[in-house]
């Protein structure tokens, strides 16, 4: 290996943390804005405007000033607090429901546990690598799972607290990565545990769920008005309730959309942070870059064949659903950007690892496990 550029992990970590903080703040601001907006609309409708709907004769004061005058501010504030309360309460309930331990999540994804007494050399190596990284990260030993029948290279960390965390590795990663590359991938997952990313993501998902609940509540209001209001003659109340319901639906949907964008943006930052933290643990960016290159090489057949793919994609080591363009909803930064951050000299056109066929990767990976005599038949000079 040639001399590699120094990778300043603390610098990268600091930047990723700053950007995450900004994004989380934005998320809270969105929630706040939606609550306030709903409050103002409700205050407007139930305040002065409501009376005008009933009594068409009264003069409607023109312009924005006139509208502001009509808002019932006490009501607006009450509604705003109520809406924020609904969002946060549903979010909290959702967080409690999703907050299981990592092993449960790993099993749900079809993982089989690897234990200390495994006889399989590849699994034994994986278990050792995880133990080594636990020392490097000074974190408790998580439980280790292998996702069978998964040819792609991928990995995930699950569990909200370091004490209940689990790390899952696809069979493809186990078979195609060398020991050092496996270490890089495991270090990346440890970085997620260390940085509290599962907790952060859970909170964001819960917040989005709260916003979804808001628009659901809006729809319920509209529907109930539609059914109960038909017989009555109180047109005014029906209209006002319909307007409130519609406001909730629209604002909720807008909030959910903005929330999804933000969640993806935060997730992309956390991936960069995890790569940087992984280098802090292993002190060598090369193998992690190589693991990412191998993912790039396999991307054609990689697609994670898991029905839960969409729900868990933010937890994975690399984007499960291959994307052509770095969309705003992508949970991971483009592979090439991640590789460049670790290996500035990377060039996809000439990089040997980026173009390596999987068969060769598997052979290289096994060389570390199999009897040496097989590998030393003359062809292998890769270690030099």
């Amino acid at each position: 290996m040639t001399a590699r550029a120094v990778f300043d992990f603390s610098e990268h970590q600091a930047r990723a943390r700053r950007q995450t903080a900004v994004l989380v703040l934005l998320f809270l601001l969105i929630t706040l804005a939606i609550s306030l907006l709903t409050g103002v609309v409700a205050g407007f409708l139930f305040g002065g405007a409501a009376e005008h709907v009933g009594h068409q004769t009264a003069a409607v004061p023109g312009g924005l000033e006139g509208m502001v005058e009509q808002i019932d501010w006490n009501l607006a504030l009450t509604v705003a607090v109520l809406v924020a309360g609904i969002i946060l309460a549903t979010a909290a309930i959702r967080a409690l429901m999703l907050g299981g331990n990592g092993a449960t999540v790993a099993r749900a994804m079809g993982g089989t546990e690897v234990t200390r007494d495994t006889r399989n050399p590849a699994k034994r190596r994986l278990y050792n690598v995880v133990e080594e990284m636990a020392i490097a990260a000074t974190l408790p030993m998580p439980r280790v799972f292998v996702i069978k029948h998964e040819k792609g290279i991928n990995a995930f960390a699950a569990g909200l607290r370091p004490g209940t965390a689990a790390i899952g590795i696809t069979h493809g990663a186990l078979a195609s990565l060398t020991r050092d590359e496996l270490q890089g991938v495991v270090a990346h997952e440890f970085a997620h545990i260390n940085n509290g990313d599962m907790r952060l993501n859970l909170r964001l998902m819960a917040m989005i769920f709260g916003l979804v609940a808001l628009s659901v509540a809006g729809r319920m209001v509209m529907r109930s008005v539609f059914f109960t209001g038909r017989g009555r003659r109180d047109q005014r109340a029906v209209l006002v309730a319909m307007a409130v319901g519609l406001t909730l639906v629209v604002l909720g949907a807008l909030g959910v959309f903005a929330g999804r964008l933000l969640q993806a943006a935060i997730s992309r930052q956390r991936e960069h942070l995890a790569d940087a933290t992984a280098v802090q643990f292993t002190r060598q960016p090369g193998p992690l870059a190589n693991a990412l290159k191998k993912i790039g090489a396999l991307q054609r057949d990689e697609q994670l064949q898991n029905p839960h793919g969409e729900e868990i994609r933010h937890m994975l080591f690399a984007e499960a659903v291959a994307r052509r363009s770095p969309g705003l909803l992508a949970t991971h930064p483009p592979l090439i950007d991640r590789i460049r951050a670790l290996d500035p000299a990377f060039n996809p056109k000439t990089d040997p690892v980026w173009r390596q066929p999987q068969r060769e990767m598997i052979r290289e990976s096994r060389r570390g496990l199999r009897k040496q005599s097989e590998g030393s038949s003359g062809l292998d000079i890769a270690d030099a």
Partner: protein
Amino acid sequence: MEMLLIILVLLALMAIGVWLYNRLIRKRNAFRNAFAQIDVQLKRRHDLIPNLVESVKGYMSHERETLTEVIEARNSAEQVRQQASGTPGDPATMAELGRAEGTLGGVLSRLFALSESYPELRASENFRQLQEELTSTENRVSYARQAYNDAVMKYNNAVQTVPSNAVASMFNFGVVAMLEFEDREQLQQAPRVSFS
């Protein structure tokens, strides 16, 4: 009024002093704990070596000299380890431990280099298992050492920088030594090249 002000200032100074003192204690505990981790991993390394020698003895009968060297280096390293576990951070002991482990790493990598010319040995499952365990242990030692050295740096920074250096000298917090293995190059190369 003035009296009250003086009392307040004194109280504030005392609070800062207590806080600095506790910070030093926490950092000292951190590096001691980190050293305990190294100790565990070194113990594991030393426990594996007799097994290794036992399993290669039959194949490598011509390398008796190297095997004796490995055992000797292991025994003296184990002795130093036992001494060092009582005095983490002591410069003389740390240097000695670094030297002993460096020597052990050196002869071990020589042994693995020699094993290349014994195909039956390399084919034996037992040997391959031991090799994986030793590779893993080497990595654990180096990660534990990394964590220890980081903890030592933080502690030393606290001991030497203003204002905690005043508290440190008042309560005899001394600068402690990092653990560097002599022959580091070779030791870091050992698991990466000849084991894989």
